């Protein structure tokens, strides 16, 4: 009997899943020993903060996972291991991951007209689902936040004319370009996807779908996702997770959509996320857009690996995935000026944590 047990364990361990560490209810923690490189990282990311003036780099949380284990974790200000944090536009990449599960279930095809799933888009029948993922709907959308509040479509969507039904507000915009040809980052496109998801999975499943499809399988038990008054998830802005839980989504992406031996996201979906949308590659100093993820394929972050992918949010929120270095990094923040640099942080992360031989 013990021989059989040993045999079955060794057979199981011939599969790659056994060689990998996966978080169960908790993460395994193997803190990296103090080093000059970690000191340099902390000197950059954690400076004394003054909440009255709100200047400089203001990191609330920094979490580094290597090979599926936490090697570094530090919190400041309102951050804490057991507390959720605003992710802002990281929500967009979370929606894409939720929709990847729906894609694997055959609920939609990328070439489908988005109007098939969201009737208010009827006057824009040529917008395909994939165009929304590329932020290429062609709708005449203005993404400015606090610097141009009068004409900002985002501010109007979240707080005034659009707040009751954000996707319908986005659909009411006119046309700037033919769909699928131009890149124009748009929170409206993301909320159109969130509204389309309702008809892809059905009214009954929709309110629980992010949990059923993604959060529960990954062991994420503290997620909050706010909706507008029509019940549509505010996919542009309003998902809240702990840093440790967001890192689970990063690990899923690092491992090509696989979670504990189960292909939760089709590999084709992760490939879609990782393929740069060509018209987005030439925006100065900005990473390229994959399908609702950011890609360093254009080396916009010169000190980070080209294969880096990221989910990024307002005021410094970031989830970075470095597949070749087998690193996942979560940074939560409250940066109110332009002093934080993704490249500067990633340069220090790679110096401190890239596994030897992992390049």
């Amino acid at each position, binding site marked *: 009997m013990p021989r059989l047990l040993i045999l079955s364990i060794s057979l199981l361990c011939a599969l790659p899943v056994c060689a990998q560490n996966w978080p169960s209810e908790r993460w395994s923690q193997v803190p990296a020993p103090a080093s000059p490189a970690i000191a340099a990282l902390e000197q950059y990311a954690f400076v004394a903060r003054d909440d009255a003036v709100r200047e400089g780099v203001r990191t609330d949380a920094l979490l580094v996972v290597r090979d599926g284990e936490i090697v570094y974790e530090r919190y400041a200000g*309102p951050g804490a291991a057991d507390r959720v944090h*605003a992710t802002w536009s990281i929500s967009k990449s979370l929606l894409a991951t939720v929709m990847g599960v729906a894609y694997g279930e055959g609920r939609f095809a990328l070439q489908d007209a988005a109007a098939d799933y969201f009737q208010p888009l009827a006057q824009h029948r040529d917008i395909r689902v994939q165009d929304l993922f590329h932020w290429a709907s062609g709708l005449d959308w203005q993404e400015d936040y606090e610097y141009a509040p009068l004409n900002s479509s985002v*501010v109007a969507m979240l*707080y005034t004319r659009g*707040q009751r039904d954000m996707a319908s507000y986005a659909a009411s915009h006119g046309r700037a370009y033919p769909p699928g040809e131009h890149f124009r980052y748009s929170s409206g496109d993301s909320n159109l996807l969130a509204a389309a998801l309702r008809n892809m999975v059905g009214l009954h499943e929709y309110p629980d779908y992010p949990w059923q499809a993604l959060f529960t399988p990954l062991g994420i038990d503290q997620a909050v*996702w*706010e909706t507008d008054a029509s019940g549509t998830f505010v996919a542009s802005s*309003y998902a*809240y997770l702990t840093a440790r839980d967001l890192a689970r989504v990063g690990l899923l992406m690092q491992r090509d959509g696989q979670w504990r031996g189960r292909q939760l996201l089709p590999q084709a979906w992760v490939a879609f996320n990782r393929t740069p949308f060509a018209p987005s590659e030439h925006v100065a100093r900005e990473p390229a857009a994959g399908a609702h993820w950011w890609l360093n394929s254009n080396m916009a972050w010169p000190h980070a690996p080209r294969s880096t992918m990221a989910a990024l949010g307002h005021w410094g929120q970031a989830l970075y995935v470095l597949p070749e270095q087998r690193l996942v990094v979560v940074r939560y923040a409250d940066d109110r000026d332009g002093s934080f640099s993704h490249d500067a942080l990633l340069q220090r992360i790679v110096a401190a944590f890239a596994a030897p031989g992992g390049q």
Partner: protein
Amino acid sequence: MSTGKRAWAALGLLLSLAAATWLWHERTQLLAFPDILSAFSAKEYCSCRYVLQNSADYCQSYIKQYLPLSSLSEDAGQRRVLASGLGRSNTAAWVGPRQGCRLIPGSDG
């Protein structure tokens, strides 16, 4: 009227026409604009307090904008927040552990 005066009058008319055209063109944005401050403050303060569970002091500083609010009040029992500024008021409320906070339509006055 001298030629000089006539030119000034024409320029003045042109400028008022341009201003009127701009006001008409931007009318929906301009009418909605005063709501931004109180709606932003009510919604983000509500999430800061009842989703992120930060202190009232921290959240007041978190939502602070260049323009001051005239008032911000919360009913911690009901988890409702009323913010007023620029002559408008907006209410946000916590609706559940997974759904967090949202603006309450029709609460703007």
